């Protein structure tokens, strides 16, 4: 990009996405209901598992609820359209994107951010209120912990986004990214702690999870929020998140550049 990309171009992309999200009213309420419902179900499942016990290995049911609300309700706002690039390639509009004086990757990020902010306010907001009133949630350890956990959440978004970008970029090689996206979703459910809190994983699986980026998405936020980690561990969580952000970014960039070349050579 030679000429300075205008910041407000990206604002426009974010705004566009924000507005178009409002178009599907019915869909929208249903999505909120759906998240609330999911959390409620899992909460009940865990309650049945806890039957008679106040805690399992030091983990109380209320901590599990907190984990569910943070990772499922708030994390649900993270907008990633794994099919975005695929669609652009399929319908041929990808060529126009390369011609525009706009950084395409930043543009996707901007759109996803617009969507995420929309989701946070209009989707996670109501869902959060309902679930907190319904099943309750632990308060943060302190306001400082709350703030630090928010930071971890933002880093978590970046991890998540870069992961999605890698899946998207695979569209240059794979006809249908749906399968990859779904398999990613399975790993997500099992290893990020969003449905199955990481405390509940057998030690061996927990160790595996700690070597994957999935662990760096929500779980740090939950641990900091609950005050389960000390200052040094918080720094370690941030560092780990950034290692993943950088690593995943580099992989995504590599795939993106090669994919672009491939597309140009083959002419789509």
């Amino acid at each position, binding site marked *: 990009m030679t000429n300075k990309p205008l910041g407000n171009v990206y604002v426009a992309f974010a705004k566009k996405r*924000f*507005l178009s999200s*409002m178009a599907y009213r019915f869909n929208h309420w249903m999505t909120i209901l759906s998240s609330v419902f999911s959390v409620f179900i899992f909460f009940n499942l865990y309650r049945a598992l806890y039957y008679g016990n106040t805690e399992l290995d030091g983990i109380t049911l209320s901590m599990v609820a907190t984990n569910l609300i943070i990772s499922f309700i708030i994390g649900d706002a993270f907008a990633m359209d794994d099919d975005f690039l695929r669609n652009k390639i399929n319908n041929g509009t990808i060529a126009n994107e390369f011609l525009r004086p706009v950084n395409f990757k930043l543009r996707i990020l901007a759109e996803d951010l617009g969507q995420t902010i929309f989701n946070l306010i209009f989707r996670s907001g109501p869902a959060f209120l309902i679930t907190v009133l319904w099943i309750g949630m632990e308060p943060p350890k302190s306001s400082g912990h709350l703030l630090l956990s928010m930071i971890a959440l933002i880093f978590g978004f970046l991890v998540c986004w870069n992961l999605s970008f890698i899946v998207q970029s695979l569209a240059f090689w794979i006809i249908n990214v749906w399968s990859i996206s779904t398999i990613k979703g399975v790993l997500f459910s099992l290893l990020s702690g969003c449905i199955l809190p990481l405390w509940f994983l057998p030690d061996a699986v927990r160790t595996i999870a700690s070597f994957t980026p999935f662990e760096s998405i929500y779980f740090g936020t939950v641990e900091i929020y609950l005050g389960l980690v000390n200052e040094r561990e918080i720094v370690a969580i941030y560092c780990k998140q950034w290692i993943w952000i950088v690593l995943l970014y580099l992989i995504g960039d590599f795939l993106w550049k090669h994919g672009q070349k491939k597309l140009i050579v083959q002419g789509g």
Partner: protein
Amino acid sequence: MEDVLIKVNHISKSFRIAKQKQGIINAVKQMIKPNYILKKAVDDINFTIKEGEMVGFLGPNGSGKSTTVKMLSGILHPDQGSIEVGDFIPYRDRKKYVSQIGVVFGQKSQLAWDLPVLESFDLLKHIYRIEEKKYQDNLERFVTLLDMKDFLLQPVRQLSLGQRMRADIAASLLHSPKIVFFDEPTIGVDVVGKEKIREFIVELNKTDRITMLFTTHDMQDIEKTCDKAIIIDHGTMIYDGTLASIKERFGNTKQIEVTMDQHQEIVTIENVSIENVSQQGDFKYRFSYEKNKISLDWLMKEILSTYSVKDFSIIEPGIESIIRKIYEGQVMI
């Protein structure tokens, strides 16, 4: 022989449409309490088509053409009025009726995207329960007429738009329908492809006496294939008659384009509008007049006696420009 086949009696059709306004606040409002408006897509349309006739159905986008075709093919019911096609009421005896008709949607292929054209044809043979002999005969004939031999075994996704459209048209005709509706059959197709499609359609109409209805906004499609045209705009029918009589009735305005050898003072003539269409370095004027008010030789004499003329040409209005004028409301019916 010239029996009325399609009888459309004063049909109307309305749709409910969500009202969309600009801006974030309105978007929020719409999300909570949607507003609808009733849009009349087709308003009291009335016509008949005879057996074996080829009729062009004209109108700008969103004028109600497709809705009418959907009603004729039995997909939608009219809100008011009725349709009879032969012994059928399209929206009532669906299964029997649709085996007698073929529908080609230019925008939406009915072929399996990933498979060779022939596979889709074969499936249609089973769907329509076409006898093997008839199927083979039709196939052979269409392959020749539509020049499909080269791509019959290619997956549809690899075909050009023109090839795909030809295959789609053949697909809609395999079961030898008596009536065929074409909804924008040449959209996006290149000139050569369009020509092939038109020739095929004319040929088929001639030999098989298939009744055809065409919607298009490509005027050439109509001029080259149809004898009759129905024009609709904003859901109402504004013309129903032969193409020749459109020209006769609305082609009243004629023009003479005059090139003069130098700049000259322009004198007004009663009942003639004069327009300066000069381009760089020449002096060109267009004289428009009504055929029934002024005669050509009188006007020519006037012009030649007033100006020193280098060249002139008489412009016959084409069907396209007439119809554009009709849409624009310049010509009243």
